[in-house]
């Protein structure tokens, strides 16, 4: 099997919520899995078998297994941290409609920096970062509703 194909498959698993992926080509089967017990650490193994299956998607695929310590914290690759909404409300990236956003993708952040506001019923909740890192993705559009514990930002930890 082409090493580049394996690398691409690893990337697909890394960027998705799939925890386990097996691919077979001829006699070679490759299994890529994210180890949920060690905070989604990515690993892969090759297995020589003669089973005729092509791609296996285990039952738990798409539903990452988390232990209680990591639940709500880490679901992606090891150094990607999710910042989630503590309340139900409306998500705002800026302190006022005409103000600049608190943060943009690519910004380097540190613990205590304000990232956004979630408003609900005359409660303005400022969400501060709890990690140091870089914002890699903002998952919610400005001024849209968010649910309790919904992921808002992906942060690459440093």
């Amino acid at each position: 099997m082409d090493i580049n194909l394996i690398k691409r498959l690893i990337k697909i698993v890394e960027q998705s919520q799939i925890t386990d992926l097996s691919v077979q080509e001829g006699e070679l089967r490759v299994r890529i899995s994210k180890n949920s017990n060690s905070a989604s650490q990515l690993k892969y193994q090759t297995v020589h078998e003669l089973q005729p299956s092509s791609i296996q998607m285990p039952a738990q695929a798409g539903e990452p297994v988390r232990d209680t310590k990591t639940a709500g914290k880490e679901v992606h690759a090891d150094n990607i941290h999710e910042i989630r909404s503590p309340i139900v409300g409306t998500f705002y990236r800026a302190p006022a409609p005409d103000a600049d956003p608190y943060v943009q993708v690519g910004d380097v952040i540190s613990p205590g920096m304000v990232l956004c506001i979630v408003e609900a019923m005359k409660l303005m909740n400022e969400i501060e970062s709890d990690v140091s890192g870089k914002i890699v993705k903002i998952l919610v559009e400005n001024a849209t509703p968010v649910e309790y514990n919904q992921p808002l930002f992906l942060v690459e930890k440093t």
Partner: protein
Amino acid sequence: MKSEARLFNIEEFDIKLDTEFLGRNFVYCDEVESTNKLLLESKEFNQNGTVILAEFQSGGRGRKNRQWVSNSGQNLTFSILLKDFTHGKKINLFNLAASLAVAHSIENLYQLKVELKWPNDVLIKNKKAAGILLESISKGNKIEKLVVGIGVNVNQTNFQNKFDISPTSIRKEFKEIVSRERLLSEILNNYESLLKVIKYEPEKILTDWKAKCKMIGEKVKITDYTSVKYGIFDDIDQNGFLILKTGDKFEKIHFGDVSLR
């Protein structure tokens, strides 16, 4: 009117305060920018239940950074710091309970009929007697501090600015100057009792709040930053959000100014 303003008598307040933790750390300021801001940002005033009362707020705020105007020495503008609560799912109950605490206190002490407007305005004869703004800080998804800012029009009789809802004061409705000290202690006593209700019997907050809101079932207009919505104020859900019924559709409203159509 200035001659009627007088300093807050902490002893008089303390005698009537019957709480375990609310107001046990009490800070009285002549002037601050905002009592909410001070509690949110201060490392010095960090004890659960701390109350900061200011005679004058140079930057008093309401929702959307609206100005909160209050004459020095005549009203109550204060903030309560809460640090000990379970999680974000119940947070709106702290909000509804604050308006209930103010309503109960005004009813108990002055026998005035008080109504509530979603989410937490306190009205006497359809005029606004108190407003509440909550601010919180969370680190990641954990709420660390919740600050409940309450402004009550107590002894002020002239309101010269322009307001969305006509203001009134307890003095205007009760026809007498009232004790700010007694009122503040009563609000804190009631709020602490309601905090226990949130813990053990949360649905009671919703029931009690609904009993005081006369807009439920009425045709309403909801204005937020960018849009206006019309419908029937059907109910509030378990989180306190307004359920707006438009035709056969139900929509959950997180915030906005509600008025009767």
